[in-house]
């Protein structure tokens, strides 16, 4: 690129100069570059322009430059053979951009320059995300519809989920043994929806433990999770009418460090000997350390995570494991709360939609009709 730069090296007023040059060249070389267009990329945030060039194959080197704020052209891209479009996605909205296209033959004896400008504008809708919006609206509407159905008292069926009934038994066993129960809300922060799902399960378990007068220990990896967990447990104790039994010091922060947190929990398991362990939320590599240490202390263990690659470890080391969506279904199933069950029905609607769309997509692909898949392709 630098050697071609030197050929047309101009210090002042490059734009004017090149326009004159362009008109001269165009006279002697008609038809060489059929068309050059600088177009706004439609339906976006006005930060992209599409530069389209239609040129004869004789032009082997096509260089695209863009004028910066002082009018100096800086190189942007070199077209490879056969390339006809370049998307400049680094453009300020609503400001005129000037591009210079220089084309050379392979022996560099002949050359041609075109200067064009264009404006990228902000639109009010991202067309590329239409399918996402439609599906999102469909799912959300379905969820809200089922929630309102449930609230109006319609009985909605949810099948049994393995492992959930045993959670209450585990709390019961801890009570018999006079040992505490340990609840780990995962290592995700409060911005992880799994953590929030985990907190609604905690709410249920805290109620049970309050009823049975069993201590519930909740070590947290993040301060915000700790604050929220305290609120949740406090409310649960309040609900069953035992606000005085609530012990704030049992819900505490350990450290933000993944393995520091695990080391601390292992210590708690060995020293407090909880009779029931619950691992609910987002887990990573630490899953097996927790589950195996818990196993060696003989606790009943229930785990639940949507973190697909940690599931095998929970499955081999825990008594019950909630897999993926089951974690989100759990609090609906446990609480029997109509709005949560309604929501779960809405998710099921989404699953049916997924299955139908997948089958339809496969059929369209087999038939060679790619429009269907393309419509759902975003980004």
């Amino acid at each position, binding site marked *: 690129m630098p050697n071609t730069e030197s050929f047309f090296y101009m210090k002042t007023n490059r734009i004017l100069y090149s326009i004159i040059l362009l008109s001269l060249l165009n006279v002697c070389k008609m038809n060489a570059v059929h068309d050059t267009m600088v177009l706004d990329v439609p339906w976006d*945030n*006005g930060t992209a322009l599409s530069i389209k060039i239609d040129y004869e194959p004789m032009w082997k080197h096509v260089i695209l430059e863009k004028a910066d704020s002082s009018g100096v052209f800086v190189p942007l891209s070199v077209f490879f053979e056969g390339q006809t479009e370049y998307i400049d996605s680094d453009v300020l*909205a609503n400001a005129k951009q000037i591009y210079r296209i220089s084309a050379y033959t392979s022996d560099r004896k002949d050359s041609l320059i075109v200067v064009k400008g264009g404006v990228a504008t*902000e*639109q*009010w*809708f*991202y067309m590329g995300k239409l399918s996402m*919006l439609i599906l999102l609206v469909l*799912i*959300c509407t379905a*969820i*809200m519809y089922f929630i309102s159905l449930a609230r109006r008292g319609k009985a909605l069926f949810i099948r049994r989920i393995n492992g959930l009934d045993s959670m209450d038994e585990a709390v019961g066993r801890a009570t018999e043994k006079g040992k505490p129960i340990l609840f780990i809300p995962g290592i995700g922060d409060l*911005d992880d*929806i799994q953590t*929030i*799902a985990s*907190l*609604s399960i905690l709410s249920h378990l805290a109620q049970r433990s309050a009823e049975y007068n069993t201590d519930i220990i909740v070590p947290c990896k*993040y*301060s*915000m999770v*700790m*604050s*929220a967990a305290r*609120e*949740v447990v*406090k*409310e649960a104790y*309040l609900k069953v009418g035992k606000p005085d039994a609530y012990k704030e*010091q049992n819900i505490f*922060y350990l*450290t933000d*460090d993944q*393995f*520091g947190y*695990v080391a601390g929990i292992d210590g708690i398991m060995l*020293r407090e000997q909880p009779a029931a362990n619950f691992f609910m939320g987002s887990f990573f*590599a630490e899953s*097996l*350390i927790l*589950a*195996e240490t818990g196993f060696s202390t003989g606790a009943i263990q229930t785990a639940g995570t*949507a973190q*697909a*690659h940690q599931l095998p*470890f929970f499955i*081999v*080391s825990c008594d019950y494991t909630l*897999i*993926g*969506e089951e974690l*989100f*279904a759990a609090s609906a199933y446990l609480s029997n709360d109509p*709005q949560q069950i309604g*929501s779960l029905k*809405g*998710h099921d609607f*989404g699953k049916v939609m*997924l299955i139908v769309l997948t089958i339809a997509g496969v059929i369209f692909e087999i038939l060679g009709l790619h429009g269907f898949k393309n419509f759902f392709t975003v980004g």
Partner: protein
Amino acid sequence: MKRTIPLLITFIVGLIVISSEFIPHRPFSMINSTLENWYLSISGFAIVLGLLSLVQVNSSKVYHKAENWQYSLASLVSLVVIVIFGVLWGMEDQRGILGNGEAISAFIGKKPFDYLFDNGITPLSSTMFSLLAFFIASAAYRAFIIRSFESNLLMITAVIVILGRTSFGPMLTSWLPKSLSFLHLPNLTDFILTYPSSAAQRAILMSASLGIIGSSLRIIIGLERSYLGSDE
């Protein structure tokens, strides 16, 4: 009231974030990035809460001479020491309030904070993590027993993949004729990982995404509010 306004805030903020995904026009596109930056700062402050809880729990153990209080003292001391080091001389290329502590760095080879990191946190963290090697062996020994059809599937795939990932696993099946090359261990491992395993992972991801979308929606419209706690 004390809970209604926060719920309203969550609703408005959530709605802005979602709509700005689809509306590329200002001001929506700008509000979103602003909110994203705020998020960083707010969560930055929150860590203080956790540290105070840690100090509270441990100092009360020390104060009341609870069982194992000596260890709580160790925890407090290490916390205080590393924080003081960090505040006084900074970390890495960041200056502390006493500057870069050239003299002390010359003495121990690096800043005291970094020294504690390299010789304290690093070995502790990696050793804790390495315990997994032992646990995965004991879990395999205990759990991979021929039982039901489903658990056998789990065990057999695990064994194939364990073999396929070693250096010599491939040698075991390299004699197979070309027509049966898909049974060659590395190929079989890749096949399992690329097709059936991917399919299951996809099913988990897709259905869980619905759970996440649903929970998010419930939080935005204020139905799920456990994280805010009681209304007092």
